[in-house]
């Protein structure tokens, strides 16, 4: 089981990093988006910085997920569908998405710190929000991508379905990140954090529960 998950993860990784276009497009998206916002905002502090950070992250995430399950229809990945169970494929993809979003989150943080300067004061809290937010968004997007993977126009549908759904996550993440930047002092931030975590857990549990009904073709 674990071996299967690991192999799916590695295969996704290899397929994405074998050709330079994939990693290059991530880099280009990040740098381009940051540069456009630099040119349009000129300076960016506090709340604006945090909001922009999460919005850019959300879209880069969406970018990845939109092609994740669709690309798996291609011939190069058919092998894994034969040998691995549905659960391990989905968990493997989930791991890969998580890896990807954490990687791009750190990259984006680095870029925005260089261009705008970083407002983050409490790095442990920022780390928690990035980690929890990534896991939550990752779970959400994976489930939605699973739902839409069978539909002809999966590209469009994934964004339509997942953007409204991702809102509570993004709002909570933005709130926690703002607190971590020291703009607002909030003593009840841990209730937000547990709330975000429990929401993610529920989403993951429900996703696992629905997996057999979604994975049938």
């Amino acid at each position, binding site marked *: 089981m674990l071996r299967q998950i690991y192999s799916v993860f590695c295969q996704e990784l290899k397929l994405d990093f074998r050709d330079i276009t994939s990693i290059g497009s991530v880099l280009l998206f990040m740098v381009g988006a940051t540069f456009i916002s630099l040119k349009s905002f000129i300076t960016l502090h506090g709340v604006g910085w945090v909001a922009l950070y999460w919005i850019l992250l959300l879209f880069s995430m969406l970018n990845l997920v939109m092609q994740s399950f669709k690309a798996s229809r291609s011939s190069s990945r058919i092998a894994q569908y034969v040998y691995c169970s549905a659960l391990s494929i989905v968990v493997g993809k989930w791991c890969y998405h998580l890896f990807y979003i954490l990687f791009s989150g750190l990259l984006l943080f680095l870029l925005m710190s260089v261009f705008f300067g970083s407002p983050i004061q409490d790095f442990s809290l920022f780390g928690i929000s990035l980690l929890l937010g990534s896991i939550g968004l990752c779970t959400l997007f994976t489930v939605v991508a699973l*739902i839409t993977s*069978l539909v002809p126009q999966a590209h469009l549908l994934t964004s339509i*379905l997942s953007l409204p759904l991702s*809102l509570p996550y993004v709002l909570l993440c933005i709130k926690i990140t703002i607190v971590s930047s020291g703009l607002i002092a909030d003593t009840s931030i841990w209730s937000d954090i547990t709330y975000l975590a429990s929401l993610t857990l529920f989403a993951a549990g429900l996703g696992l529960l629905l997996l057999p*009904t*979604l994975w049938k073709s």
Partner: protein
Amino acid sequence: MLRQLWWKLLGAGILVIVLIIGLGTPLKSGILESFPLSAAVGETVTLDVRGYNTHFATATSQSAYLKNSEQRVVSASLIEVKSEQDAAFTFNLPTGDLASRESLTLIVNNEKDGSIILPSALLLKEGSPSNQSSTARWEPLMVNELHRSEGYRFPYRNILHETIRNTFFHVAIWFAMFILFITGLVNSILYLVRRNLVYDKIASAFTEVGIVYGMVGLATGSMWAKFTWGAWWTDDIKLNMSAIAILIYLAYLILRRSIHDIDSKARLSAAYNVFSFLILIPLIFIIPRMTDSLHPGNGGNPALGGEDLDNTLRLVFYPSIIGLTLLGVWLSSLSYRLSILKDRWILNHK
């Protein structure tokens, strides 16, 4: 059962009664405004009061009080009634503590209107020493002197005024929407468990009507907001969350339209319905309570506290929910039959 007429007529009848009672019942008396807004300690001040639904002229025993924060009052020394709505009350403000600054509550009391209360009607400012001649004193309020208003009337609230009647339509339609969405959710779960396409059709019908109700809720709320908050759309958290909830359910419809295979359509849309409802729970119930809102019942309170919804309103509000829900079930049953007809049509054309 679903094809019988009685419950549809019951729903429509309840709505008619709700309309008649909800629009016909008068509001309790209230005070629209009083002028001046502030006076100094020890002064003699004449408050020009404009009432709403009041009977100043026909009432025989008129009295008026200004109440301070310690629940002590000073009563009006002179009452001049100009018309049913307009009256002037003259108060000799006590000297008491010269440096005190507080806002006083105006209580107008007669046997026809009961006791009418206008909070923070007059701001008491520091007075100059020359005003110290006043002989008036703060006295304890004689509660048994206050009249109660009679008959079945809706409460008068500042800012809201007559729009308090919107509770029966705007708030009730949100409740009905939730009942419809939850019915849809239950049917989606039933589909996932039993794999019967009928459940999928019922779920889709209920969700569709729920979306219509949600849009009506947004539109009516926008209307109400324009008259009370002054803008069609405010940056209120409940408003935005509701709009997003409607977006989520619209996405459900789009998902259904974009899949052509009947089986996978049912399967995926049922899964999405269950999943999106889970995300919706915090969106509607938890996040709005964590932030400030213009809506009543925020900051940790239940949405329908005793202050906002009194018994006279409840008597119309709950039937309104039932009536709108029955109407929603009726519409859903039509939508359900439509989907059956569609299926038959597809069958005929294959």
